[in-house]
């Protein structure tokens, strides 16, 4: 009896002692603790994320046999030289230009909207507006883009409405203007939400102080509201800019004859041509652009208040 009652106790003691020793060792060596905690997610990050990027970077320096479509592991800069020809520079320019225009459009649209939501609307109104902003995100991207085709195409809803109003018909389906409208619409919620967040954090007293010091409305907007909203706007612009930069479905569906984006050329090089190395070289372009964009955004304080 005595033996059986002691045995488990001893085993438990031994176990507790071992655990205590390990935790003591870990407590004494902070670096070990940190390494053990961080290494699984770090390994995941390195293998899945960085390794795939590095592989892509390496592929960009190879070529593909034009006949059998197999990779040829000979080092060459030909893909990058080809990138610098007028055709691709104009496509890169169009993509970046559209991303910039869409970002500016969304910033301009989002500011008064978010301002109303954060500062003027009643509690109930704010909830309603929030739902209205986020609701489109519940619908499929493709469905929303197709809806715009119906609106913008010849004899579409927009043209019909304008004709009824006596303003004449428009035919802007399948043009870069159509792309601009669709992109601005699709990414708008991603701009409104961070701008709203930035506006909401501005204390009332700042504006009152501005008024007390004799500033009129415009001066208050320029000197108090805008500087405080800017980081939120830059944070939102990261979404609108990068999402437009990487898109290829909207150009394919609503774009016209001059609508190739970087993504479309990557897609056709992978799908139609089977030219993985050139597609990889092209894919590096948006990555480089985004690195510079994020560096710029950081210097504007986008990551301090998100």
């Amino acid at each position, binding site marked *: 009896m005595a033996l059986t009652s002691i045995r488990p106790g001893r085993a438990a003691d031994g176990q507790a002692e071992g655990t205590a020793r390990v935790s003591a060792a870990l407590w004494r060596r902070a670096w070990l603790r940190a390494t053990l905690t961080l290494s699984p997610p770090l390994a995941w990050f390195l293998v899945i994320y960085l390794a795939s990027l590095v592989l892509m970077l390496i592929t960009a320096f190879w070529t593909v046999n034009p*006949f059998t479509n*197999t990779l040829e592991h000979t080092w060459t800069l030909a893909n990058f030289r*080809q990138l610098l020809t007028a055709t691709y520079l104009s496509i890169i320019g169009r993509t970046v230009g559209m991303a910039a225009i869409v970002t500016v459009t969304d910033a*301009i649209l989002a500011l008064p909207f978010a301002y109303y939501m954060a*500062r003027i609307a009643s509690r109930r109104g704010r909830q309603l507006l929030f739902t209205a902003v986020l609701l489109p995100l519940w619908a499929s991207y493709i469905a929303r883009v197709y809806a715009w085709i119906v609106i913008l195409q010849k004899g579409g809803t927009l043209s019909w409405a304008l004709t009824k109003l006596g303003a004449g018909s428009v035919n802007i*389906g*399948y043009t*870069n203007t159509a792309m601009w409208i669709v992109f601005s619409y699709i990414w708008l919620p991603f701009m409104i939400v961070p701008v709203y967040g930035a506006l909401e954090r501005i204390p009332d007293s700042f504006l009152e102080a501005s008024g007390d010091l004799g500033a009129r409305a415009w001066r208050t907007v320029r000197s108090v509201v805008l500087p405080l909203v800017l980081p939120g706007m830059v944070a939102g612009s990261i979404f609108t800019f990068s999402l437009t930069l990487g898109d290829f479905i909207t150009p394919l569906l609503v774009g016209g004859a*001059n609508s190739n984006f970087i993504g479309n050329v990557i897609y056709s090089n992978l799908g139609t041509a089977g030219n993985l190395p050139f597609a990889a070289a092209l894919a590096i372009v948006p990555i480089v652009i985004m690195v510079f964009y994020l560096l710029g955004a950081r210097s504007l304080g986008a990551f301090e208040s998100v």
Partner: protein
Amino acid sequence: MRRSGMWTRAGAILAAASALALAAGCSSSSSGTPSAGSSGGGGATSGLTAPEANAPVPSSVGKTEGKLNLIAWEGYAQPEWVKPYEAATGCQVSVKYAGSSSEMVSLMANGGGGQYDLVSASGDADLRLIYGGDVRPINIGLIPSWKNFHPFLQSPPFNTIGGKHFGVSYEFGPNVLLYSKTTFPTAPSSWSVLYDKKYAGQITVPDNPIQIADAALYLSKTKPSLGITDPYELTQSQFNAAVSLMKAEHPLVKKYWDLASQEISLFQSKTTVVGAAWPYQTNTLDAAGDKVADTIPSQGATGWADTWMLATKAPHPNCAYKWMQWVTTPKVQAQEADYFGETPANQLACPLMNKIQKGSCDAYHANAPESYFKTISFWKTPLAQCGNGKSDCIPFQQWVTAWTGITG
């Protein structure tokens, strides 16, 4: 409540400023201009011999292996004909759908990798597969329906080399000129309407590099001085002429379509009135009551023809032979033709097509005389090696590069 006088007034200012900024933006929005420039890699290919040309072929179909792995176009392995095949042969079918000819070539790398048995390759991929050693010859004598094929599909140059059949022809179709009957009361007799400024902004053509062959075909008839004899075998100067014709066409094009449904919607909304198309679009639009028709103009047309090709390392060759026998029978040929909107290789399929869909045999020209098919230049892989023994033709990869230059 947060409401304060200053907040409201500041808000009004913001809204007004936004409206002004957007108005300014609208009036000065511009689009990029296409720019010229084409250069491309693409090394020459060495020695043109099919590596598997002398691989042995079976004299009879042996015991089936119980499995069959296909690489196919979507719509090429429908339950209507896969299920009866499985029941009859005991071969379980697995299908990998490919989105493009190049994807098929990539999937078939290394002779199908010991995984795939058959691929439903189009003419623009066939030669790459044959000369890449990924497919091997078959014994055409084991395919009974073969003798009922349209003669031009029995040993076509895109799948038969030196009397060796690298697979069996399946279905085909022409790339037709689709037009609105409102704009054209009579069928246009020339592809020139696609290059006519009169229809600027109302033209649509496929977003596919092989489209350059359409321009080459047109030039071969309208500019004989270029000396184009085969739209897929173009020397640098012939290629340049075709590319510059397409660049001149670019400002007239409303949209380079990627999906058949896009072209259908372009014609339904009357955004475009003329374009290059497949018979499928014509028939879909016609069925929906749109006033359109298609034609093969006097210069002829390009077209596609698909072939079931046997992988060099096919793990289930007997099931593969059974499949080639089955899908070339008149019934499956008719089912496929009506499902996909194309023309069967087997001439006996015509009456069965009409049984499935009235008038479909005529609609897809399945009973047309041989002279009709002579007007179609079927897709084949553009190679550096021209048929004349020289190696100064432009290979496909440069077609792709040039195509990006055309569509901008």
